[in-house]
Structure formats: C-alpha cells, structure tokens
C-alpha cells in the first residue's frame, strides 16, 4: 500500500533487466512502478495526487474518458516511482502532489522535484508503468503493449525486411510476441531519447534480439541520427519481458559506456557471489574471500575455471581473453586469487580503478 491507498508494486520487469547490468540485482538509483486500473474514483484521485497545474490540465483535457483515466494512471505511477526513488536514496519524503510532471517542448515528461530525476511513463489497456532514474542525465524509456486484438500484418509497416527476417524463423505464437517486443523496444528508445518515433519507424533499427534475456539491440539510422548524431554506432540495449497478455520494454541509457561500467568493488562482489553459487556444495574450512586462491585453496579444476570464465563473460556481455590468462598462470605454475581475477575483469571492461559506478558518481 502507498500514500494514496493503492497497491503500487515494483514491476517484474525490474527483475528481467537488472541482473545483466548490476551484479547484486540491486540498483538503488532507479525505481519502477506499475498500476493495473484506477484505485479510486478519478476526480478524487486527481484531487489527491495532482499539483494545481496538473489538475488544471487534467480538467481541461478534451479526450475520451479512457484516455483521461489512463493519463491519470500514468501520473500515479510516475509520481510513485519518483517518490520511492527520492525516499530510498535521499530519505526525502514527498507527497505525490509535490512532484509535478510537465512535458518539455518535445512532449517528453520532466519531473519538477528535488534533483529532477529522469522519468518515462507508458499506459495501455488500463495498465500504466513508469520508470524513474536518479541521474537526470540518463535516458530512460519504458513501454507496454497488449497482445490482444493486434493485426498480424502490422509487421509490414512497422519493420524493415531485415527486421522481419529476424522474426521469420519463429513459430506463429512466438512471432507475434517478438514482433510486439520489437515494437515496444523501438518505442522505449524513442521515449528515452525524448523525441518519440518522429524520425520514422525505420530510423530505429533492430539489429538482433536474445530470446533468453529478452534483450533487443536497437541502432539509430537516418533521421534519428540527425537528431542524435552522438549516438552513431552506439548499440542501444532494451530489455523486454512478456507477462500474461502484456509485453513490457525498458531501457536505461547512460551517456557513454564508462558510466555504466561496474566499479572494481562491484566486480569483486559479483565474483564472490558467483563463487558462492558455484561452490555451494563444497565444504571449505574458511570462508571464501578476495584472497582465496582458486586452485589450491578452493579446489578448482580447469573445467570449473572454464565454467566460471564463461559465466563472467556472459554476465558482462563482454568477451575477455581468459584462455590466455589461464595459460599464463599455468606456465608460471602459480595460482590465481579472486582479487586478481577481479583485476583482470576490471581491466577488460575498460577500467583500471576508475570512478566506475554511477552510484558513487550520483552520491
């Protein structure tokens, strides 16, 4: 339950996209909320959560009732996401009405509250979701669509022949779902960049998708590159998930990959966590720590090392020359500590003890 008596919960999509970027599954600088239907009568809710300016806008809206209600639903989740974000990170307690959300000249929602977090809102078929990020410089986008009542031939207009060929190999059921995921991915990117799909549907080109994680890689083309020349050659990764009749998509894009790179401590935490998972049935006299040595102390064999290395590369979505590392320590006939392994990973993620984590940067 929250401030206005409705159930607002963290969307399951947070689980789907966080682990890939953030080792411990915790990302305190973002918040996501979702609401399925209005918790009370619209005008009552409007009185509770909207700022005077927002209320004026809502009352003057000429749209059909469905549209007005979904707009209100969208404001609900957006304010809730911002509220919980500021509470968690800054111990700042704001009423929903104190968090004003106004569109910028391009129509992208902007938060008028402490630190001006970045926000994205989506609503469809009576459900609304919002994604807020503490870093005002980040770009966040979220979208959802219902799988019900969709014309199957919408692919012809929404996707290029290359994009359609990605779908061609799928069974009809999966094809419909992934077509919608791809559509949601384009929408999320459009929202994250703040200009929607105004540059044309084909200016947001889907390069590939990964069925296991729901990740979709989008590349900007043509008109979108005129709007955002700095994103030329930058793959934009959108995470998608299907939940019953809905497909959700979300992207959190930080300017420049360096800021998304985990800090050395985060790498070490991840390695210790992963080691704990891999060796949970093995009995050690001492707890596993940064100084623990893989082969002599932890009883690793080469196959275990390969499993670990594969997991690390998958986790960070970055190939690293583990074979060379293992060959080198074999030649030198020495062991490898978890700490050394963390250094190796840090180096190959483009680091070297830099500031890394956005957590530290924001705080």
């Amino acid at each position: 339950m929250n401030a206005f008596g409705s159930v607002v919960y963290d969307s399951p999509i947070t689980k789907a996209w966080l682990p890939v970027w953030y080792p411990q599954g915790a990302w305190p600088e973002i918040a996501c909320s979702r609401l399925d239907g209005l918790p009370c009568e619209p005008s009552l809710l409007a009185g509770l959560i909207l700022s005077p300016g927002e209320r004026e806008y809502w009352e003057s809206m000429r749209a059909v009732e469905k549209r007005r209600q979904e707009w209100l639903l969208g404001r609900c989740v957006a304010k809730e996401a911002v509220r919980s974000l500021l509470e968690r990170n800054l111990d700042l307690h704001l009423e929903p009405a104190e968090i004003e959300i106004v569109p910028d000249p391009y129509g992208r929602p902007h938060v008028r509250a402490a630190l001006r977090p970045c926000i994205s809102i989506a609503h469809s078929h009576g459900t609304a979701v919002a994604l807020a990020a503490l870093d005002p410089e980040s770009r966040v986008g979220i979208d959802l669509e219902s799988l019900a009542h969709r014309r199957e031939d919408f692919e012809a207009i929404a996707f290029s022949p290359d994009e359609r060929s990605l779908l061609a190999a799928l069974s009809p059921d999966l094809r419909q779902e992934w077509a919608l995921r791809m559509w949601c991915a384009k929408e999320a990117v459009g929202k994250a960049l703040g200009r929607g799909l105004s540059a044309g549907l084909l200016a947001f080109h889907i390069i590939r998708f990964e069925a296991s994680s729901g990740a979709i890689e989008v590349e900007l083309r043509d008109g979108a590159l005129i709007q955002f020349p700095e994103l030329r050659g930058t793959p934009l990764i959108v995470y998608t998930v299907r939940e019953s009749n809905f497909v959700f998509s979300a992207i959190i894009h930080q300017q420049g990959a360096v800021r998304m790179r985990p800090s050395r401590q985060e790498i070490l935490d991840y390695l210790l966590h992963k080691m704990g998972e891999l060796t949970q049935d093995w009995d050690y006299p001492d707890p596993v720590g940064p100084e623990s040595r893989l082969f002599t102390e932890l009883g690793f064999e080469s196959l275990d090392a390969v499993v670990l290395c594969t997991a690390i590369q998958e986790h960070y979505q970055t190939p690293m020359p583990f074979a060379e590392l293992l060959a080198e320590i074999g030649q030198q006939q020495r062991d490898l500590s978890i700490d050394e392994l963390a250094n190796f990973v840090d180096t190959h993620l483009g680091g070297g003890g830099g500031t890394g984590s956005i957590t530290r940067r924001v705080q």
Partner: protein
Amino acid sequence: MPNMTEAVVFDQFARIVAKSLRIDASQIAFDTQLTDLGAESLDLIEITMETETQFHIFLPDKSILETAAEVFGPGILEKEGYLTEEGKRLLLCRMPEADGGAFDGEVAIQDLQHYFLKVGTWVRMIQGLAQYTPAECRSCSGPMATSMGFRMKCEKCGQEITLRSGEEINREWVREYYDREYRSQVEATVSAAAVQ
C-alpha cells in the same frame, strides 16, 4: 483517386478510425485529435494501414518537418524544441490550408505533433496523396486494382503502374523548396557579404 472532396475523404476516414478504435463515428470531428479518441501508437499503425488500403495511397512514415530536417540539417527548422521562423515558413508553404493560427507565435514541437494527429490534418494529407493515384487506366480507361506492394494494375488491359509513396513525394517537394526558397536566399546573403 483524384478529385475526392474533403467531405468524402472525411466520412471514409472517420469510418476507418471508428472501426479501429471501436467508437462511434459521430464522436469524430475535423479538429479532433486521434489520441484524444483513445488511439495508441499501434492503433495509429492500424489506421495507417487501413487508410492506405482503402485510398490506394502510401502515407509518409514521418512528418514533413522530419523529412525536411534531413535536407536542411539540424537546428535550421527547429531549435531546442521550438519551430524557427524558417520552419514555420516551410510548413505554411507545404500546408497553406493549415488552420488559422496553427503556426503563429511560439510553436513547440509538441504542439506540432498534436496538429499532425488531428483528423483534419490526416484528411487533407489523404486528399493530397490521392491525387497521385489514378482512378482509371491511362491506356484503356479500365478500372485499376492494387497489385503487389506499391503497384496497381489495370483489370482490363493489365497495364501496371507504380504508385509514389508519400515519403518520396515529400522528399521531392522538400528538395525543390530547398533549392528555390532556401539555397538561393543563403547564396544571396553570402554574395552580398562578399560584395561588401
């Protein structure tokens, strides 16, 4: 089909919108915004597809302003979310029939998007594009039927024609406009500066 009146296009388009959004066509007026009728992004795709099928046209996949930005480059027609005078001039030239005051004063890109979502804006665009779709075969006056993709075929003599897409028509218009209205102006300014 050429020479369709605005009223005829409006009636047919309103039926398409009403069916797609499952609403009564009487709710739809010339200055209604499609999103205010509850249309979401995929509904707009559906409306686009049905409109293209029924009117035998191909709607552009972005606004004239975006197409023009590809020729003019960034910052000329729009700056920091607002139309520049140059941008307003281009839009007025392309849409001389635009609702009075649509481009007066400070025009945010958001306002422009709302304008492009109005039923009336769609009706005029459909009417304009329909001019390029022949009602009958140029060789034998037989009825034309849609063929594959951008093509139409005469049902009587079998002659095929390729329809022009809205995007292509817009791009061509922008290039002509750029050469006539903008480049000459820039060149004149440059040569005047050179003389001085």
